[in-house]
Structures are given as C-alpha cells and as structure tokens.
C-alpha cells in the first residue's frame, strides 16, 4: 500500500478504527478507542536548486484503555511506521507512532 496524501491516509486509518481525528481542537469530544494524528515535521529533498520531493512526518497516536489493543498493531503495519513512545493519561494508553506521507 502506498499512501499518496493525507485524505487517503485518513481513510486508511478509518478502516482501522472509526474514530479518527486529524489535529483536533480541544473542544472536540473524542470517542475511544481512537487514532489522533498531526503533522510533526516536513522532509524535503532538493535538486536543481529547488525542492524536488516533499513528504511530511506525522505523529499518529493510538488511544485505548486496552494496552494490547489490536489497533496499534494495525497502525504499526503501515509503510514507514515506527513506534516512538508510550504513555498513559487518565487510564488511557497512548501509543505514539511516526510515519511519513
């Protein structure tokens, strides 16, 4: 699977779990389990004195009460995906993955 843009990426995540949020504002009441993702940094390769290829690094956070949630294993299978860290807040496990689109 090759993900070409964020909208396609969003649909790929929604196929894993229906609750997917892209850079949600604080006012959004989230349903769990869910996936929250946002842009981390951009990666640009240059050629001919101009940007030649641009891709973006995303932080993808799987939030679930279940520490063995299958959602995180599905996210981990996505291209370029690596696990960055884990933490827990309010009895919710947060698995933060990084990947590039």
């Amino acid at each position, binding site marked *: 699977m090759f993900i070409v843009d964020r909208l396609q990426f969003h649909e790929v995540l929604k196929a894993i779990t229906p609750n997917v949020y892209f850079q949600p504002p604080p006012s959004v009441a989230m349903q769990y389990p869910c996936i929250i993702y946002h842009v981390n940094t951009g*990666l640009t*390769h*240059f*050629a*001919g*004195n*101009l940007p*030649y*290829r641009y*891709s973006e690094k995303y932080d993808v956070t799987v939030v679930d009460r279940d520490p063995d949630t299958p959602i995180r294993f599905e996210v981990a299978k996505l*291209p*370029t*995906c*690596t696990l960055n860290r884990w933490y827990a807040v309010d009895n919710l496990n947060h698995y933060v993955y*990084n*990947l*590039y689109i």
Partner: protein
Amino acid sequence: MTKVIWDQVGQRLYETGIDHGVLYIPNGAGVYDTGYAWNGLTAVTESPSGAESNKQYADNQVYVNILSLEQFGGTIKAFTYPPEFAQCDGTAMPQPGVAVGQQKRKSFGLCYRTRLGNDIDGSDYGYKLHLLYGALASPSEREFDTINDSPAPIEFSWAFETVPVNVGTVDSVAYKPTSLITITSVDVDSTVLSALEDLLYGTVGTDPSLPLPADVLGMFSGTITDVFPTAPSYNNSTHTLTIPSVTGVTYYVGTDPITSGTHAVTQDMVVTARANVGYRLQQPSVDEFFIDYS
C-alpha cells in the same frame, strides 16, 4: 598603481547551487544537435587530474619541470536521469520500457548552471554556464534500499571521464583540445549570452544543441547577427528540392549539410536549418521543413 582593498561592497563573491542541467547526445558527425532536460540534478563534481610534476635534473639541480597532460573527469549525482541517458550508461532500449544492460556506452555532452552571488544581490548576482564535452560515464553502483522510517529517493551517481574536443585557433590564439568551457554571465555580452542560451536550451521551433568549443569562443569573440531561415522549395512534378542561399544559415538533411541549389529527391525527408557561428535564427522562425516526396 592603486592599493589593494579587501572585501569591497559588491565584491564578496561566491558560487552556489546547480540547476538547468541539459544532456546532449552527439550525432554520427560528433555534433551535439539534440538536448534533453535533466531533472533531479543534485550535484556535479568537476575533477581535473593530470598536470603532474615531472622534474628533470641536470647539473645537480632541477633543470626543467615537465607537466603531464591534464585530464578532466567528474561525477554527476541526480535523483533521476533523462531516458536518453540510458544509452550513455550502457543500456540499450530495444522497445520502450525494455532495457538491456551491459551494452555499448555512448559519449555525451552536458550543460549545467551554477549561481554566482555577492553581498548585494545574493545568489541572483549572476551565473556560470558549464559546457561539458566528450564525456563517457563509467558503470556505477546502485543500492536499492527498502522503504524505511527515513524515506529518501535513491540518489544516482555516475563517474565520468572525458575525451577533449578540438578547439583550434580563435582570434589568432591556438587552444589545446578541451572538455570544459565555463561562461560567466556577468562578464560577457548579454546579447551573445542570450544567443548561446537559445542554442543550449532551444527555442520555439529550434531544438536545443550544444555548440562546439570553437563555435562558443567564436560567438563571444564576434557579433551575433539575426538571420531568417528561408524555407526550401520542392517541385513534386520534377521531384527536385531547391535549397536557398541564406548567409549565416546551413541546411541539413539528417546530420549531413546540404548545399544551396537544386537536389533530386527520392523519398520523404526533413530539412533542418541551423545558424552558423556568429548568427542566430530570428525568433519566431521555423527551422525544420518536411519534404513530402509525393
């Protein structure tokens, strides 16, 4: 005499960047008459070699220091390459999309531009055009790596050596054969530079081409005259082609020049008009003429 002054305003020069890469494939006559845009060019390393010291001793001292012949090579790095470069990299293309490796390597020419900057205009102060002749690429390693958490396109790299091409005598100065000519935009006549760039990059109606070193030097040692290529006429009842006589223009059939006057035609052909040294085809103008035999 004036005292030297360092770091004057506008004189803090530097060079940076690379862009506008163009690949030229020579025809059977050694004329670089077709150019192709080279996208994704990331670096060209110029690596002159040779000119090594060879001291000869006599009377217990250095009698003479003879230098070996200077050679020129380098490295090209890019994310991709024009399909036409495949033949220069030992790849034959019997059918579109079908590549056969380890074939004959064809020589090529290359043009690229580097920026010239200073403390006033930054990197827009000017530029240098680098014209490379007689290059032959060596086989190079390609490492195809898995897509991972540090996505990056493969950067191809080709080492090349060159066979210098003749320059001859220009303005009563005899030059040795060379593989590289560099034109600095801020130091040359802008009209002539524009004419050279029209040749290098092509125009509407004219293909890009790489003029040979003697032609380049000739352009900058003289003046440029605009000429209009008159269309050849064809009589389909007698099957004769009449090539007009236009000062500064040479007509070609394929790679062969064709003289002015009448010529018998036996099949369909394309006649191409090219400007001679010191001339430039007026724009817009048509430089290719299809002769329909029927």
